[in-house]
């Protein structure tokens, strides 16, 4: 069935380190996205027409464009247009951060909108300034709602990072491909075993995280 290839030499370890490449890219991008998404989300609720127009276009564009197109735009496009030479991994980080920031900011905006106006007015009347109102009153209230949603974003990121093999990053799927190619003669059925293993590895990486998000969502529902 082709599973025996994985037991040869360091093949399985290589596969796992490939998975780590994908996980690393998604974790770094999520960290950046949460930070930038918070800021953009708050900016979007302020009544500034320019910011609102720009962020709307940004959000709509990112929402509509497939991540693969964005990867191509950053990886091949910037090289050509701006004469910048960005490494594949950096372009992946840029694309996933751009995408995550858009998703996050929309979530932040949504939860900010659900906070009644009274909260702002009360804290202003208590003498807090805008910065204090956000840091001490508003943000702590939305964090609880945000945490399960951002955990969900992590699983979506991990799933989407499988695309980075298309711009030449050696992650788990690419390693799997290499293993299959290298053992074409000795185990011709390797494709089945290796791709099934990759399939299961992704499942094992995403499923627990998704469960955690669901659990927290239920626990903090009220």
């Amino acid at each position, binding site marked *: *069935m082709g599973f025996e290839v994985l037991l040869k030499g360091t093949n399985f370890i290589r596969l796992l380190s490939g998975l780590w490449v994908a996980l690393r890219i998604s974790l770094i991008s999520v960290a950046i996205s949460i930070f930038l998404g918070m800021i953009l989300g708050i900016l979007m609720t302020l009544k500034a027409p320019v910011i609102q127009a720009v962020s709307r276009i940004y959000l709509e564009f990112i929402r509509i464009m497939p991540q693969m197109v964005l990867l191509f735009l950053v990886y091949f496009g910037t090289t050509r247009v701006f004469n910048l030479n960005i490494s594949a991994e950096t372009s992946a980080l840029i694309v996933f951060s751009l995408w995550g920031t858009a998703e996050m900011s929309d979530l932040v905006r949504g939860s900010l909108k659900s906070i009644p106006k009274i909260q702002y007015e009360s804290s202003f009347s208590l003498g807090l300034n805008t910065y204090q109102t956000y840091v001490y009153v508003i943000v702590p209230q939305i964090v609880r709602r945000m945490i399960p949603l951002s955990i969900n974003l992590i699983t979506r990121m991990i799933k989407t990072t499988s695309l980075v093999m298309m711009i030449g990053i050696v992650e788990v799927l690419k390693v799997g491909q290499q293993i299959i190619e290298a053992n074409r003669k000795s185990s011709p059925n390797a494709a089945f075993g290796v791709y099934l293993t990759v399939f299961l590895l992704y499942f094992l990486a995403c499923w627990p995280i998704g469960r955690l998000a669901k659990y927290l969502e239920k626990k903090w529902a009220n």
Partner: protein
Amino acid sequence: MDLEVIYSYIPRFVEAFWLTLKIGWFGILIAFIVGILTAFAVHFKIPVLSKIAGIYIEIFRNTPLLVQLFFIYFGLPKLGIRVSAESCGAVGLGLLGGSYMAEAIRSGLDAISLAQTESALALGMKKTQVFKYIILPEAFSLSVPAIVANLIFLLKETSVFSAISLMDLMFTAKDLIGLYYDTTETLFLLVIFYLIMLLPVSLIGNAVEKKYRYRMLGQ
């Protein structure tokens, strides 16, 4: 940007556009059928089927389409199951989408409180009537936003098809860049064609969402 180059590329992109759209809509059709069936199985707790449906939903929601396609296209032939690239794309997208649609529909069905069914029954409606006139419209209006989001998500996911060498938009773009190195023009066309495909869906989706928001009216 060279307009002449852009003009000469358009026919190839149009061809790829139709292929992408064709496989995309086939996949979405499968996704709807699979999604509705599994959602009903889970919601009505049909003995064995609901367990299978639950496992299916968890597995396909937690793995990327690219990996699913690789498994179906390169892995399964080793067991003697051979599918063409086109049907592999449609089936893969359908199975992925089915799990997402199932979640969207099921959460809509689950959100309808028991009181609705009971009141309708007390008014003398038959069970089929309750389902047709009470549960279904309400559940549908609740599911619409998620379904629209899924539609956009699935159409976006078609960009992965190039990995199993289907001549879709992504494949054409990569091919043209490799052949002629007119990166800027090719990427520009790529973006334009994806906008043509997805912007209408997004706009119509927003309009439909607004139209079916009647469940919120009473609140």
